[in-house]
């Protein structure tokens, strides 16, 4: 028993591991909560697009010596507003329009990256750098988590209703479009901080997998959000430990732990239905 405790605690004697733990718990929980809307409103593709379009924002910020998170945030907000606008105006299907724009933005990011001499700092953006989180960034992540949580609580009943019956919402005077834009902005905030943990490429896994597992467990949105947050945070903790002891990539370890949880839940669910 004592040995197990030692095994769990030892890695967190280091300051950088403590920061990494706090950051990944916070972000995985936030991703799990907002991920419920991503799963139920079928926004997985948009989440992915938000992560990818952050890249040129980060590279431009890096080139000018601005804050990298600030650059990612600016790019994320622009993308969220752009997607909201496109949904209303475009004659193309929304996913097609997003597909065109997000691959172009990502390519622009890579193009700019290839012109820089120092490539190393930016690979963190692609694959995450949770072990390099500084205390200052931790505060920003806490702020993002709080903003997301407060807005989701305040607008819960309207966001829930517009997710499955926007017609009734409109009849009683709730406009779906501004609510959708609010949701996309929150998603942009979450994604930008999430990039720090697992990187651009794996961000949508943290949004989708815990929420998908939770959707198999419960039939109430609020409970689903709590369960998804717990699955996300639990996987972050386990993934961090695994990456410490087996010296593997933290982001990948966290994502694969989420996937394993989903696999177990899906298997139990399948067994129960038979």
């Amino acid at each position: 028993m004592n040995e197990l405790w030692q095994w769990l605690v030892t890695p967190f004697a280091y300051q950088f591991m403590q920061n990494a733990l706090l950051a990944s718990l916070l972000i995985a929980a936030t991703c799990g909560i907002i991920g419920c809307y991503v799963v139920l409103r079928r926004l997985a593709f948009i989440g992915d697009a938000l992560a990818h379009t952050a890249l040129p924002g980060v590279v431009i910020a890096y080139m000018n010596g601005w804050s990298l998170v600030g650059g990612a945030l600016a790019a994320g907000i622009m993308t969220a507003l752009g997607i909201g606008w496109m949904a209303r105006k475009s004659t193309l299907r929304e996913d097609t329009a997003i597909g065109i724009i997000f691959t172009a933005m990502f390519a622009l990011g890579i193009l700019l990256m290839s012109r820089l001499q120092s490539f190393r700092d930016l690979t963190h953006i692609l694959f995450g750098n949770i072990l390099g989180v500084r205390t200052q960034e931790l505060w920003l992540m806490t702020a993002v988590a709080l903003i997301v949580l407060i807005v989701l609580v305040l607008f819960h009943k309207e966001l829930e209703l517009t997710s499955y019956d926007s017609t009734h919402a409109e009849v009683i005077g709730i406009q779906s479009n501004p609510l959708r834009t609010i949701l996309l902005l929150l998603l942009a905030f979450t994604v930008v901080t999430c990039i720090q943990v697992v990187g651009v490429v794996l961000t949508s896994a943290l949004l989708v997998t815990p929420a998908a597992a939770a959707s198999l467990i419960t039939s109430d949105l609020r409970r689903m959000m709590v369960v998804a947050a717990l699955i996300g945070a639990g996987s972050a903790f386990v993934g961090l430990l695994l990456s410490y002891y087996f010296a593997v990539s933290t982001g990948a370890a966290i994502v694969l732990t989420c996937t394993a949880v989903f696999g177990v839940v899906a298997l139990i669910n399948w067994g129960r239905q038979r």
Partner: protein
Amino acid sequence: MIFNYSGRHHVDSIPGAAAVHIRDLRVVYDANQGDALKCTQLDIPAGMRAALIGPNGAGKSTLLKTLAGLQPYTTGTVTIYGRPVRACHHRVAYLPQRGEIDWRFPVTVRRFVMTGRYVHLGWFRNPQPYDDALVEQTLLRLGLGGVADRRISDLSGGQQQRALLARAIVQEAELLLLDEPFNNVDPETRLLICTILDELQQLGRTAIVATHNLARLTQDFDLIISLQAGAIVGQQIAALYQPATVEETYE
């Protein structure tokens, strides 16, 4: 303190005004095509149960959506209890066709019906004891007491339709717009819906019901409005209704 969704407060209806009053209405979806709906004159007095009949594409849904404020119209005047469409969201309840709702969303039947109360709650306010009691009572009245805590995806077609009606009832609206409430429902549910429309009429409410189901029209409605190709081709008091018109409508 109530923060209304529309930013507008309750506007009283004009005493003695018709529930629905339409003059020279034109609805156009696509400028290249003709009018989706054209209606020179339609008056439905308060307290009536009106049936909208006609083949698919006749404009029944378009008319209901226009009255609900969901469908913008090109020209004309439409008033509800003497006020413009959407002047007061409390006054109009709309029951959509079942396909417009994502039934797989994780929400219980009780919570789904509660969304009918949202217009009275507004932003930031949760249901009060009165709302809970009204929802509970309506669930029982519609025979949904046993499935109140089940997910809406578990409901049968008839139960889904009853849940939609329950939501429209708890809204306590003066005008109910029902789009195909009899579609794919069992005879029991149909009877229950008609009984409830009758009860609502006793309370002075108005109902406009689009339907394909032509059985018992004269018993269950007071006014029968036939549409064809986006135009109203007949308005009759149900008691004087000529069945021949129905065959004409469906030729």
